[in-house]
């Protein structure tokens, strides 16, 4: 089969092979996994607390822009869901290890 007609495609950047993403920071020298987990947890917790403060402000009648409050609520929800998914993965990996025959 002749592929002469599509040879020119190779000159375009769009079909260049993907460059492998560089890990930053390096997983070997950077902070440990547990450290990252607790950092992420703290971040999610901080976001939930901020949302709670905003809700309290709305409840006592302070002028809070409603759409910004709703958007922050959604951001908190997505952060929490992401955290739950990470937790599920970690737990699954742990249980797989536990079931491993020695």
């Amino acid at each position, binding site marked *: 089969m002749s592929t002469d007609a599509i040879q020119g495609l190779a000159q375009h950047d769009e079909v260049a092979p993907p460059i492998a993403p560089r890990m930053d920071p390096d997983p070997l020298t950077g902070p440990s996994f547990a450290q990252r987990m607790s950092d992420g947890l703290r971040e999610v917790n901080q976001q939930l607390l901020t949302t709670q403060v905003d809700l309290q402000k709305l409840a006592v009648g302070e002028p809070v*822009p409603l*759409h910004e409050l709703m*958007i922050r609520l*959604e*951001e908190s929800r*997505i952060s929490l*869901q*992401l955290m739950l*998914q990470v937790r599920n*993965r970690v737990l699954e990996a742990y249980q797989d290890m536990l079931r491993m025959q020695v």
Partner: protein
Amino acid sequence: MDYLQTFAISAAGMAVERTRVETAALNLAQAHTAQSADQPAFQPLRVVATGAEGFGGLVRAGLESVPLPSVTVEPSGVPARLVHDPGHPLADGRGFVAYPGVDPAREMVTLLGATRAYEANVAAMNTARTLALKTLEIGRST
């Protein structure tokens, strides 16, 4: 994370539409406030939303930045509407009372357009949110 940026963009759009609604509401509320003809008090306002702050601003903000809409409220410069009402306490020597030159039909159209544009922003934000939540379902076994 990148979905936060989409949320911020939609929030900026919603803020613009809210400003348009608030301005239209103020114009409608002031439409029938009388003022003496020689010293007009209220000018109908108009919202001017611009996409970016010029080439210099874009260069300063850098390549990664998103030009969010910025909004200013300016007097529209419509001349006051004169009504002949000699018995009015604010009437001038010739018996005229001035009212702000608010066009109710224009304000209603502004309200409708702002409502639809706001809904469009909410739809864009909901789509970004759905995408983010769907992404978290990757690899879910159940």
